[in-house]
């Protein structure tokens, strides 16, 4: 019996990387501008806790936040893996790097799902 060829995992992870790149590019800047710069620096008056908590409790907002957190983590995993691989040329630790990067993204996704549930 010929062995069934193993399906490569790369295309699957690449799709997640690409989706994470899109999400990061389109959505992160406005979030960061508001929450980590404009509000802390006093450029804009932040919304009250209750209003914001109510907005974040909405199921659609939580789904949105889940995608906003999970996909960019896979984007990070892919890029960081190649940064270590090509940039720093740590090729002999390839397996460990893969586990660290994709494992980190998977754990992060789990934590996000738990928090946002």
């Amino acid at each position, binding site marked *: 019996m010929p062995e069934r060829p193993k399906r*490569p*995992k*790369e295309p699957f992870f690449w799709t997640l990387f690409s989706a*994470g*790149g*899109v999400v*990061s*590019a*389109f*959505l*992160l*800047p*406005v*979030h*960061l*501008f*508001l*929450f*980590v*710069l404009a*509000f*802390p*620096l006093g450029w*804009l*008056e*932040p*919304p*009250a*806790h*209750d*209003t*914001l*908590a*109510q*907005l*974040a*409790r909405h199921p659609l907002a939580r789904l949105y*936040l889940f995608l*906003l*957190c999970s996909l*960019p*983590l896979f*984007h*990070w995993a*892919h*890029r*960081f893996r*190649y*940064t270590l691989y090509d*940039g*720093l*040329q740590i090729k002999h630790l*390839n397996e460990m790097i*893969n586990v660290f990067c994709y494992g*980190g993204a998977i754990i*992060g996704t789990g*934590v*996000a799902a738990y*928090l*946002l549930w």
Partner: protein
Amino acid sequence: MSSAPRYTEHHPRWYRERVSTYWWLWRWNYLKFVLREISSVFIAWFVLVTLLQFRALSSGAQAYAQFQEWLRSPGILLLHLIGFAFVLFHTATWFGLAPAALVVRLGGKRVPAALIVASNYAAWLAVSAVIAWLVLRGRA
């Protein structure tokens, strides 16, 4: 992914020039590539911040006030200023690559690259405006 090359006993040694670990430092294009890759570290950091923010937000007003206080500390502000620049760099380079990934044809003709980049920026501004409106509209 990685397939280790198999060596046979009489296989000639391959000639491979030794590349310095810092090969990317000496040319702007290479440096740009590495900076773009490093932007992903800040992206992961901001995901973490977003999750912490959500947790503080759902823990109550006091926890959220403490979180906001943390965001105001000088070291964190500096880090976030640098991180914001890296995220913008990611956005710009991502949109710059869009025409290579996305071939759009209209009436049998290929839509010019500049138009695809421009429509990405336009969509980005629109999406950002909607999110900002959602966040800001509830203020007293």
